[in-house]
């Protein structure tokens, strides 16, 4: 079969499931808020989320980005302070640090999770380090044990950028309950969405109170950042939340299917499992492409060919330091390799597809591999 990228017939033309999903419950929520624009949908959602995650304090906000900023501000982190983060993430993780005037410091990622490498974090700690911003990339929790121990040892904050990780657990406990605080995103593409929104969780009563003061407009000693969630958005979350647990379970089943079918291929592989990751939220499903087994075809070309077959696969993040305006030094060879040669992910709604939709992912990858020589020759 000729590859679609070379003019052949693609494996599929049918689109993957639409996202987001909604029904009359979202309509009812919007209607409630429309009738009473000052209605407090936020507290109701906060209560649900606190229960769902098993954390005492939840603050719904305007976005995931602002959630990270608020946590940093509430901790009194600012000008001259250093915050360690991985360079393999969305630009927002970095922007939040820069927006509060602090200095981002890059630590490398681990090759078998794409999450921040605790050993490199420890190497990057200086007397100016105030926090680690650990991203749960794709929805898989970063190493909460090792990072927690480092934060404690050096008396610095551990903040989880859990923007992609609603529903993620580590050793059976929600990512929301680890570290100093966690920031989640409910932006349009995310697994629990309201279009634009965010959530802060913490187990620290004092921090929560400071956050509350800041978000409600500040006081004599705290700046005010009025970044509470929009009422319509909170209403939407109250509807989406009812659907979320089942959707998460479905995504995880789909991921298990892909794991089982991709693992034997050898030239691509799923991310290895980790028994401590008791729930991967699977916002993104990572596929590792092994360039050394592609007989001279690059990861980029391979992915391009899979995409041409009708599969929503992308080559993943470019390292943050490739972004104009990001000028911090970096010595992160794993990120360089993953971003340049190995990483790829399936667009978030793919895992909500039917078994046949998922089988097409595997078929497309196999088809491209079977035609590597044709691909290389052009």
């Amino acid at each position, binding site marked *: 079969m000729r590859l679609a990228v070379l003019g052949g017939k693609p494996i599929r033309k049918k689109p993957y499931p639409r996202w987001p999903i909604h029904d009359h419950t979202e309509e009812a929520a919007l209607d409630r808020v429309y009738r009473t624009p000052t209605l407090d949908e936020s507290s109701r959602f906060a209560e649900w989320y606190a229960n769902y995650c098993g954390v005492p304090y939840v603050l719904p906000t305007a976005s995931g980005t602002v959630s990270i900023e608020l946590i940093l501000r509430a901790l009194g982190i600012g000008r001259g302070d250093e915050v360690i983060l991985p360079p393999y993430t969305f630009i927002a993780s970095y922007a939040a640090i820069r927006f509060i005037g602090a200095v981002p410091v890059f630590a490398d990622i681990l090759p078998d999770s794409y999450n921040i490498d605790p050993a490199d974090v420890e190497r990057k700690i200086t007397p100016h380090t105030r926090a680690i911003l650990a991203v749960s990339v794709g929805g898989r929790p970063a190493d909460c044990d090792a990072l927690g121990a480092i934060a404690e040892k050096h008396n610095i904050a551990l903040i989880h950028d859990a923007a992609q990780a609603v529903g993620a657990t580590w050793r059976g406990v929600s990512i929301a309950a680890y570290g100093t605080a966690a920031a989640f995103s409910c932006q349009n593409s995310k697994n629990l969405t309201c279009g634009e929104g965010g959530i802060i969780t913490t187990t620290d009563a004092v921090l929560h109170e400071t956050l509350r003061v800041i978000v409600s407009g500040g006081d004599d000693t705290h*700046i005010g950042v*009025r970044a509470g969630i929009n009422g319509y958005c909170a209403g939407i979350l109250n509807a989406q939340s009812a659907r979320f647990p089942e959707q998460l379970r479905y995504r995880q089943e789909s991921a298990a299917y892909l794991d089982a079918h991709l693992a034997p291929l050898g030239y691509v592989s799923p991310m290895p499992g980790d028994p401590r990751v008791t729930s991967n939220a699977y916002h993104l499903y990572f596929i590792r492409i092994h360039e050394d087994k592609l007989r001279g075809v690059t990861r980029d070309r391979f992915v391009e060919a899979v995409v041409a077959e009708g599969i929503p696969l992308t080559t993943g993040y470019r390292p943050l330091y490739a972004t*104009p*305006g990001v000028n911090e030094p970096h010595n992160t060879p794993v990120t360089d390799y993953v971003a340049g040669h190995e990483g790829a992910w399936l667009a978030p709604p793919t895992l909500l597809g039917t078994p046949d939709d998922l089988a097409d992912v595997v078929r497309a990858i196999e088809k491209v591999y079977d035609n590597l020589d044709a691909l290389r020759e052009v």
Partner: protein
Amino acid sequence: MNKALKETLNHAWGTIGPRSVDGGTLIAQRLGVSHALLTYSVQAALEAVLRGLDVEGFEVILPAYCDRILADTVLMAGATPVFADIDYRTGCLSPMSAERYITARTRAVLCEALGQPDLTALAYAAGRERLVLYARDALPKTEECAAAVYGIGCGANHIGIAAVDDTAMFDRIYAAHNCGRPYTSGASESVVNTRIGGNLRVSEFPCAVLSETLAALDRDAAACEKLLSNEWPCPRMRAVHLPTAGTLLLRCDGIRCETCREALVKRGYAVERPYTALHRLPVFGGHSDEEFENTVRAETGYFRIRI
């Protein structure tokens, strides 16, 4: 159910959808400016403008008597707030006082339109390219400023607006509000980041009801306008002329302001003192030794009544 909300839910409620884009165009047309950006709050709009002016590490002049959001946002954007006095007659930043604080480090001058500010004098003193107008529940037009920031609508319908003429400036504001991606890169997914930007984006839902919010604003402003020629209980009391939605600002030119306040309450008005001076608050630097004569006077002589 509201048709526009239902349509938005059924078609597009994602990031920077048609509702917020069209809303920006509608507002720009109404204001007669080239660009208007909608954000999740008035503070977010001001933050985007200040970041667009690259104020980080520089000074921003603002009135000591104004909405606290101005001072909070200056700090948020990494700049130092430098307070100046107001003009007692208009309630707005005094051009003369502002001029005294302008230095080579001044990157922006903020003026809240409580009444009608003397923008010509302010633009002359501050330079048009640094002047930012700020207004709540009102959309006063301005040609004399680099940018204007507005907050309209209450509760879930609240949105912030950043209005500018200059396209290069708009690009910077836009990038500040959307992950560093400039406006001119278009809405495509494969966008390039050119600056460091956060997420100050507005939800599509309040934008879906924007025309209703604007209609309510106009209705309330008209009601407010009617009150401008009212007889107030004290002969030295005046309405500060800027029709805003839902409230009217009054100023007492006499000295027995407390008596005025009581008289207003007796007439059945809900009266509040709009602001306390910001320059004394520790969070803003606490320059308590500065004497801002008009600011001090406004603390007792200004009233806001609900209408």
